[in-house]
């Protein structure tokens, strides 16, 4: 994280976070208002969600207020330097692969889908084809042996 003076080109992530969290707080309060309320002074299921929703709104608004005063932070600056976009692309690619992997969980058998995922992940992380294939084979077998063989969990 790097502190920098207020600059127009730097996206205000704190303000964006506070807006999202305020909206979430409002949604919680609105949704909780439909829960049963207090009976003879004893709080019902609505009490805690209403309090917590209100607290979230108050804290999120406070965050928005503090971002107006202090310097903006470049949260996405990489400590060691280097382009954030490249590594962000890698992370998003791995996330997409994981989503696909879970989506195929009940369709494609473990021994078929797992090595493909691992090869793809290791290639994204910069490993050679040979090494990625070897690692994928070893890890798939190890996971299968532990979960299916040792723990009898149907993968």
């Amino acid at each position: 994280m790097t502190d920098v003076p207020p600059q127009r080109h730097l996206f205000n992530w704190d303000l964006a976070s506070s807006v999202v969290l305020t909206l979430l707080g409002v949604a919680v309060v609105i949704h909780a208002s439909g829960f049963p309320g207090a009976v003879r002074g004893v709080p019902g299921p609505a009490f805690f969600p209403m309090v917590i929703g209100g607290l979230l709104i108050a804290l999120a608004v406070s965050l928005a207020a503090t971002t107006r005063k202090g310097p903006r932070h470049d949260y996405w600056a990489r400590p060691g330097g280097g382009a954030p976009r490249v590594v962000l692309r890698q992370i998003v690619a791995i996330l997409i692969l994981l989503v696909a992997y879970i989506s195929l969980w009940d369709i494609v058998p473990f021994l078929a889908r797992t090595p493909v995922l691992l090869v793809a992940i290791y290639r994204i992380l910069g490993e050679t084809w040979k090494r990625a294939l070897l690692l994928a084979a070893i890890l798939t077998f190890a996971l299968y042996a532990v979960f299916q063989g040792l723990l009898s969990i149907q993968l």
Partner: protein
Amino acid sequence: MSPYLIPLSDPIAWLYVFIGVGLGVIFGSLPGFTATMGLAVLTPFTFWVGTQQALAMLLGLLTSAIFSGGIPAILINTPGTPASIAMTWDGHPLAKQGRAGFALGINAIYAFLGIIASLVVLALAAFPLAAFALSFGPAEYFAVAAFGISTMVSVSSKSVLKGLLTGVLGLILALVGLDSITGYPRFTFGAAKLLDGVSFIPVMVGLFGVAEVFTQMYVKVPHAQEIVVKLTGILPSWADVKRLMPHAISGTLIGIWIGVMPAAGADVGAIMAWGQSRRMSRKPEEFGHGSPEGLVAAVTGANAGIGGSLVTTLALGIPGDSTGAVLIGALLIHGLQPGPLLFRNRPEIVAQVIALVFMSAIITLIWGLVGAKPLARILKVKDELLWGLVLMICCVGSYALNQSTVDVWTAIVAGAFGFVLRRLDFPMGPLVLALILGPMAESNLRRALTLSQGDVSILFTRPISLLFLVLTAASFLWPLITWLRGDKEKRPDRTAGSGCGRVDGVKPALRAELRGEGNR
């Protein structure tokens, strides 16, 4: 043999402790990987083994991870875990002076002594504390839970406001599912799978496993290329032992005390112990330049926190930090609810915990003394190789819990959100604390008010409840008070040795990343 000490004579228990210690060495030694991450990733596995075996692995991992964090701190000047930051200050200069073996020996021996001393405190303090807590009613339990939640302020190292926000997010997550008092469904949106609430373990796996891998990819901790492996003279001489004794005692006492305090973890213990040791030293100018006294203080301060933190975690069910929260989650999936009732109904479990930590400490000591060279080689393992493995274990482990892909989705979504939140400086510790303690606070508050027929004075007229509520208020208000006093800038920086230390060679950005999450 007494049923309380069964693990000591059980070869299977030793085997599981050995596995846990081995995993702890890996998670502790590799910079960026933490004990919290190791526990989160390992927990789903333990669901499929017996309670004792599960505890053996988890406690073995916890015990050895903090010790192992000292290895890269000494050899490559990069702390393996946040708890070992203070070990870089004197450990690495010793290595550069050609005394790497001596520094590693000190790390192994004094880690062992610190853990054993803290176990004595655990055995002596936890049972009376739990017995005292048996007299608690709903009002007291609410107050204790509220105090536990308030400690989220302390674990929010960068921004208190953001810590509170993630804590509130955790409280909201904890609301999902059937209301514990009336059975009314809340925030389930008609989905039957949400009636049981958000599954805690996959959330932890996502926040501390998946998000951690993404964070490491983003930060990319510099990897060791050249490691000092000339390891001779591991054992300290008798003269060294006598000279180091006061510093070991001081570090151990500080570590235990910090460990008992909720939300103050091993990193704080190590730094405070190092600072205190320097103050009491006749040669304070040597601290930071390879002082064995400084290293001993840091090592004992970090490791003595293990038993200390288990006191409140087990006796009151209040996690001291993220690691404690994950440990509580792991105990819960084995049907063990930490708190005074655990001591009354299952005292053998508490005794087994003590025995297992003792066994872990012994194996860790042996690892540390005879396995120094292989341990040093672990540092050469490429992070990229482990990232793929950890991601796969996160997926398969989450699935293994209930054999449901919903849990895998939960882990991945939590991981993605966790990564973004961490980049934006929202700490994860408060979220986990709130997720565990939120239901406890809500249900006990409502029970207390039901007993008093809606009279809130029940919370303030009972002394223990009042005490914890005052502590809660103080915990929440303290940052505000310090801010109003205008000394915000003087707030101790955990990574800077409370203003009294130096961090040679540890890149500031890396320190910032390390301190951002958890404290082990």
